[in-house]
């Protein structure tokens, strides 16, 4: 009942749909191979290998970043393009929506991005699994030692620290002056901090609002001379007097009413407690600048260095590095790109672009000249302790943080003991 040509319609439509779907990216093939294009007529290329010959150009690198916003994406893309123009290579910068997941997909497929952001907390697991290519960045000694230690696994440094942030003390100027305090009263010891917080505590406002977890309480642990793991991250040292003293300090002040945790103030983090003025002071990192100017522009505040504990000044460093995949084909070019992106000038450009601090010590002076109000943050680079980056500890740290949510009433000794037990099971 159908004519012949009418019968052909359905199969044809089906075939064309299949053809569209299986079309493939013929346009996105491997970059032009100088040995086969006619452009560089005068260049003898019979003896050169494509991978190692950077002067021939034409290498395409893939970069995966987890961006904090348009400012960061644009700054990184501009820098990568500048390197690409200089060397004749090309860099494709992609922004990840879920960094952990996309990196994992890349490693599992054997086709990971060449260069990527790697957070310190994910460093250990990836290093142990062999996903990373260990390289020595140019002028390695110029990076802060604690940052280099963070990205060292079994004695080998795997990547270059990209930038870092530290914790400092933010003080609400209005509340400070209303309590009759002056610049001379800015606390320099833990006792002074406790006093000032008590003075600042009023009916509607608590003296110090703290976020929960070891990423805040850890600052007091460092100030007391302790740390969760030993120096080479092979054994836990949480159940020690120094660590206990740090946590006990927080617990005592919460009991006294001069410190409060952000959830208890019905806020999501310390910055929100500070911005909504439910806390007169808070301890947060560089990111608070952006949050305050976006969400709470009317609150006037100053930033001071964290006070020194019994063992000296202590703060926490947060950092990421430029990871290079072991399965990448272009190790040399990738290292070159990273070296370009970590020069002091480029790091200052990133600082101006999206507010991170340069991880090179030589850039510290320039940074302070440009951002004198962030002097307290950059000073922390000297005495701050980097994050836990040993492999296999993600669940253990999550459990510790979960128990420390109730630090006001927790049995600190048994909390630290359980951390040691769980960490030993992973590291031992």
């Amino acid at each position: 009942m159908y004519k012949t040509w009418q019968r052909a319609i359905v199969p044809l439509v089906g075939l064309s749909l299949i053809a569209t779907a299986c079309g493939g990216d013929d346009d996105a093939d491997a970059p032009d191979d100088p040995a086969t294009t006619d452009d560089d007529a005068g260049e003898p290329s019979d003896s050169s290998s494509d991978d190692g010959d950077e002067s021939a150009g034409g290498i395409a690198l893939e970069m995966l970043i987890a961006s904090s916003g348009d400012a960061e994406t644009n700054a990184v893309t501009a820098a990568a393009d500048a390197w690409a123009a200089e060397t004749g290579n090309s860099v494709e910068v992609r922004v990840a929506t879920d960094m952990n997941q996309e990196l994992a997909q890349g490693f599992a497929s054997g086709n990971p991005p060449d260069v990527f952001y790697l957070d310190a907390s994910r460093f250990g697991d990836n290093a142990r699994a062999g996903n990373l290519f260990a390289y020595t960045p140019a002028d390695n000694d110029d990076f802060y030692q604690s940052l280099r230690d963070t990205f060292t696994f079994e004695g080998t440094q795997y990547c270059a620290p990209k930038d870092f942030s530290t914790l400092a003390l933010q003080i609400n100027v209005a509340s400070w002056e209303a309590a009759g305090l002056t610049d001379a009263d800015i606390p320099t010891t833990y006792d002074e901090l406790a006093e000032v917080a008590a003075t600042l505590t009023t009916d509607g406002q608590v003296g110090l609002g703290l976020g929960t977890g070891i990423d805040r309480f850890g600052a007091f642990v460092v100030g007391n001379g302790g740390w969760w793991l030993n120096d080479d991250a092979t054994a836990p040292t949480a159940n020690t007097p120094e660590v206990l003293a740090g946590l006990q300090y927080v617990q005592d002040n919460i009991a006294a009413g001069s410190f409060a945790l952000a959830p208890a103030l019905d806020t999501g983090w310390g910055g929100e407690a500070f911005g909504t003025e439910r806390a007169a002071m808070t301890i947060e990192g560089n990111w608070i600048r952006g949050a305050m100017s976006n969400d709470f522009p009317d609150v006037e505040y100053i930033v001071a260095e964290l006070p020194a504990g019994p063992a000296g000044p202590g703060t926490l460093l947060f950092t990421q590095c430029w990871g290079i995949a072991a399965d990448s084909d272009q190790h040399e070019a990738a290292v070159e790109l990273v070296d370009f992106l970590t020069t002091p000038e480029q790091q200052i450009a990133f600082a101006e672009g999206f507010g991170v601090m340069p991880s090179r010590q030589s850039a510290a002076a320039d940074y302070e000249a440009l951002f004198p109000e962030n002097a307290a943050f950059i000073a922390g680079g000297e005495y701050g302790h980097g994050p836990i980056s040993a492999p296999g500890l993600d669940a253990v740290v999550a459990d510790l943080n979960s128990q420390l949510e109730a630090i006001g009433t927790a049995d600190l000794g048994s909390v630290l003991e359980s951390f040691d037990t769980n960490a030993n099971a992973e590291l031992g």
Partner: protein
Amino acid sequence: MGAGRLGRQAKAGWLFTAPMLIVLGLFLVLPIALAMWVSVANWTGRGSPLNSDVDFVGLDNYRSLLTEPGLDRQDFMISLRNTFYYVLGVVPLQTVLALALATTVNSRFLKGRTFFRTAFYFPSVVSSVAISLVFLFLFTGTGAVNEFLGALGIDGPSWFTDSRGLIHVVGDSLGLWSTTDPPAALSGNDVMGLSLWEWFSGPSVALTAIMFQVVWTTAGTFMLMFLAALQDVPVEVDEAAMVDGATKWERFRYVTLPHLRPTMLLVITLGIIGTWQVFDQMYIMTDGGPAKTTLTPAYLSYATAFDGSNWGQGAAIAFLLFLLIFVLTTLQRIVLRDRDRPKRRGIRGRRSTSQVAEAGA
């Protein structure tokens, strides 16, 4: 002829189902088989799980979840406990609510039936991310829900930061025990890594807020199923019951409900499967907190694999969850089966193959 017709129809059948079989095989069966392999191997995430560096480790991952004392087993037990209370609360509530809504919408005296049907079904269609964010906003300490409770004179909790279990709180207010000093018989005894006191905590306040959200969201879908079944209830039987003098409630209990049994079975089965697998709300709203009281096996599987790079264990958690759901739904089918219906005999019992073929020709 009989055999030829059947042969051609069989071939046509295979041809038509082939695309779906290929898709299911590639994207469902193969990944599940691969995940099964990952759960009994020590894959680190680098390269394919089938490459030669990956070794078979037997039931190590399952052992560390079930038999070896440690953090992994503790986390898994916490997730099972949380989800157990979650299922216990959500499934009956959403079934009853769906039935109530369906009966209301089906009522002959309701005006604007289409509007109500749409309104009740609407939450199921909206993105769960959007709803989760709205509920996060509603349930903050100073949010709309607490304002409403305040108008009734109740001091609402700070929902998503409150990790106290409901059973603990209720018992405390009734004077049965004190949450700050739990009875030694319960807090002293450990079963599978958690003390009995922790096992009998009930859902936390944070989990309860999520339960409200999920009941509200999914009742609409099940309402549609009940509605379809309700419209199938034979009117003559209902009228006969009315003539016999049955009250409205008796008619509902003895005429409508039995007729709804297959749909009830479907709704409860789907409810059990859906609630045991809950992930979205935990991923978007709470990350398993506060104090791990909204941790569920699905979220734990994701976190173990992607945040902890422990792929084998993440896969093992997923398979244990599958086993649990399978056992529960089988149990539930046995409990709710229709004992009056005669067992269907196989095709050999009553009719021969050729008779079937002739019937189909």
